[in-house]
């Protein structure tokens, strides 16, 4: 009996370790999913609701947060508000935040953008070029891009106050672009 007990203890420990590893992977997968992860996002230029056109490649060297929204998404307003807070805190460190509409009706998108004013640019993606490139299938979706233009994190969740946002934004800001 003691022999059996002794041999089952390492097995139990191994199972615990395996389960822990699985749980950690699963938890990470909720924040980091999608085929776009670890790939450079193709460049795009989009018109802004107010002001000039915006091109992604002009922010190379700065971490960029893209937030996809639509007037039909009930959680997008809270998401945009939370990102506005992060932008306010980290813009002096070089953080760029861009809100991207995936609205079909441009007038509705304009009305929504005017009703939910943010201090970062709100862009109109009428052709859905960017959302298709990232294969976005839910809203709100937030994409974090590093200084080199590679997609690092993709949040398709519904928790704008997720503390992992701050940790990930800080990780992107702490990254230094290696000179070629």
């Amino acid at each position, binding site marked *: 009996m003691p022999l059996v007990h002794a041999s089952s203890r390492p097995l139990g420990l191994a199972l615990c370790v395996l389960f822990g590893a699985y749980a950690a992977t699963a938890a990470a997968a909720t924040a980091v999913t999608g085929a776009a992860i670890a790939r450079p996002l193709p460049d795009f*230029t*989009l*018109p802004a609701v107010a002001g*000039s*056109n*915006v*091109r992604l490649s*002009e922010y190379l060297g700065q971490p960029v947060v893209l937030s996809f929204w639509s007037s039909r998404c009930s959680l997008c307003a809270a998401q945009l508000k939370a990102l506005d807070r992060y932008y306010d805190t980290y813009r002096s460190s070089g953080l760029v935040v861009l809100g991207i509409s995936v609205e079909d009706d441009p007038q509705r998108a304009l009305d929504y953008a005017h009703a939910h004013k943010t201090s970062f640019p709100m862009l109109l993606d009428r052709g859905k070029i960017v959302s298709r490139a990232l294969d976005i299938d839910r809203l709100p979706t937030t994409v974090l891009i590093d200084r080199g233009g590679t997609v690092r994190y993709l949040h398709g969740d519904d928790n704008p106050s997720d503390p992992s946002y701050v940790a990930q934004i800080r990780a992107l800001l702490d990254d230094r672009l290696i000179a070629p």
Partner: protein
Amino acid sequence: MLWPLTLVLLTTTALAAEPAAAPSPSASSDAAPPAAAGGAAANGTRSLDEQIQTLKKDVVDLNKDLFVLEEELLFPANTQVAVFVSMDVGDFFALDSINLKIDNRDVSNFLYTPRDVTALLKGGVQRLYVGNIKSGEHELVAIFNGKGPHDRDYRRAANVRFEKGVGAKYLELKITDHQRAQQPEFEIKDWE
């Protein structure tokens, strides 16, 4: 299209340079005094830097050659048409976008950022479009969108009929200010 070829050539170049860059085991003599060893190390680093610089220059030259080759293959002179954009002064017009049509077919829709406009105002010339068309008569229509005088939305079109011959065809969209009329002017110049 030529990227695989570029990669192969770059890898070959890098591999060819590697043995020269790697420090020889025989070079680090145990009996050598520390000062001499430090000098040798410094020389070795300098030599390595020079090799890296040479390699970088080779890569840049190779990239340039491949770019020219790619252009010649994709857009042969007998079918090539290229459209350039230039802008002068820009007091009466803030460029936002240009929509380009050749023979009533959309070929380009370019959105300008403030950085693009600044570059154009500094004298830069942008190649907006390069493509292939058959010999014969064609029509090019350029629609300019932006802010005109008094910050009003401004949309103007300019068109030109041109003859495509055996050589490459170059067309230039020129945006200038008409001081007397206090209006922007849009002109399409056909470079023979």
